[in-house]
């Protein structure tokens, strides 16, 4: 039991450090490392990942709120559908078999890895009047961001930020701050479904919370001082390796 507690702490702490350094949630690293590295069943890994993301995102929200980079009104508007998506995604996840989840996660990791290596940056749209059509598109796509969060145990910032920047024309820095604020609510909603279903391993929850919070604090400080370009590339390649391992494991091929 002690080895599991330490193992979960190390995985979540290091994922949170790396994730915060390059500005993504650690969920993309936490779930594969817990399943492939520690042999924790994927449903439990997703539950632990979501729990640690609450701590990571809340910690980031503190920083962004102090700097005034959160658009609370927009965050609440988008969060109404995101929360529904998270509740739905978590409920679907419980019904899915581990192999399907592994393959789905693996496919998503290919996209994330590619984005890390290519470093796709979004051009900020010129500030224009927010039309009802664009807001509706943002609200609908936010549902899918929430769905992916609840289903796969990720924060969903990788979808939320592009939605806000590209569809709603919000400045990137505000979009990131608002996304972190939203993630703290979304991940708590998704995590609660796993908690009530008895999938969240309470014995390991403590190390997940501590690892997430401390890792996010350290990572955000290191990210300012260290050039993260190389780390970003390495992170991308690790993602691609994980994606292959998860897809193969999902197909029943053990390597």
């Amino acid at each position, binding site marked *: *039991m*002690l080895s599991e*507690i330490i193992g979960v702490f190390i995985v979540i702490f290091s994922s949170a450090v790396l994730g915060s350094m390059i500005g993504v949630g650690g969920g993309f690293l936490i779930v594969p490392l817990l399943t492939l590295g520690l042999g924790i069943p994927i449903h439990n890994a997703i539950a632990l990942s979501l*729990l640690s993301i*609450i*701590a990571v995102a*809340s*910690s980031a*929200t*503190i*920083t962004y*709120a*102090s*700097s*005034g980079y959160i658009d*609370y*009104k927009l965050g*609440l*508007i988008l*969060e*109404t559908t995101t*929360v*529904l998506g998270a*509740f739905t995604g978590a409920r679907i996840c419980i019904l899915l078999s581990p192999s399907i989840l592994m393959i789905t996660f693996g496919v998503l990791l290919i996209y994330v890895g590619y984005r890390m290596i290519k470093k796709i940056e979004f051009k900020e749209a010129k500030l224009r009047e927010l039309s009802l059509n664009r807001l509706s598109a943002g609200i609908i796509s936010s549902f899918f961001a929430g769905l992916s969060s609840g289903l796969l145990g990720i924060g969903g910032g990788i979808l939320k930020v592009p939605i806000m920047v590209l569809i709603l024309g919000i400045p990137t820095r505000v979009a990131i701050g608002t996304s972190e*604020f939203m993630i*703290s*609510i979304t991940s*708590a*909603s998704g*995590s*609660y*479904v796993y*908690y*009530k279903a008895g999938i*969240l391993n*309470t*014995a390991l*929850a*403590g*190390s997940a*919370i*501590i690892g997430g*919070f401390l890792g996010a604090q350290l990572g955000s400080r290191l990210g300012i001082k260290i050039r993260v370009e190389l780390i970003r590339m390495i992170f991308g390649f690790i993602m691609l390796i994980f994606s292959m391992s998860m897809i193969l494991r999902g197909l029943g091929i053990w390597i």
Partner: protein
Amino acid sequence: MDLKFNRVYPVILFTILIISLILSLAGIIYNFIDPGYSMYIMNLGVLVLYIAPFASISSIFIKGVYNRDYTLIGLSIILLIIIGLNMVQLGLPSL
């Protein structure tokens, strides 16, 4: 009000996180003494963490009331209702 909110809201969130962190740490340490009781403490740590989103939304609700911003008030109430209904449907938390 916005400046005051930007100062008070992070303090509320930080306090909740610290309480959850202390309870989690206490749970891990207590695991060596009484594993059964340590589960109870860790469970409490998790439940405190679940309070964080409610605290966020409630803080925004209060900000809306102060600023007489009815959109913020309405949105925070709608979000609280959505989360609350889902939680009731799943079953309220218990220790």
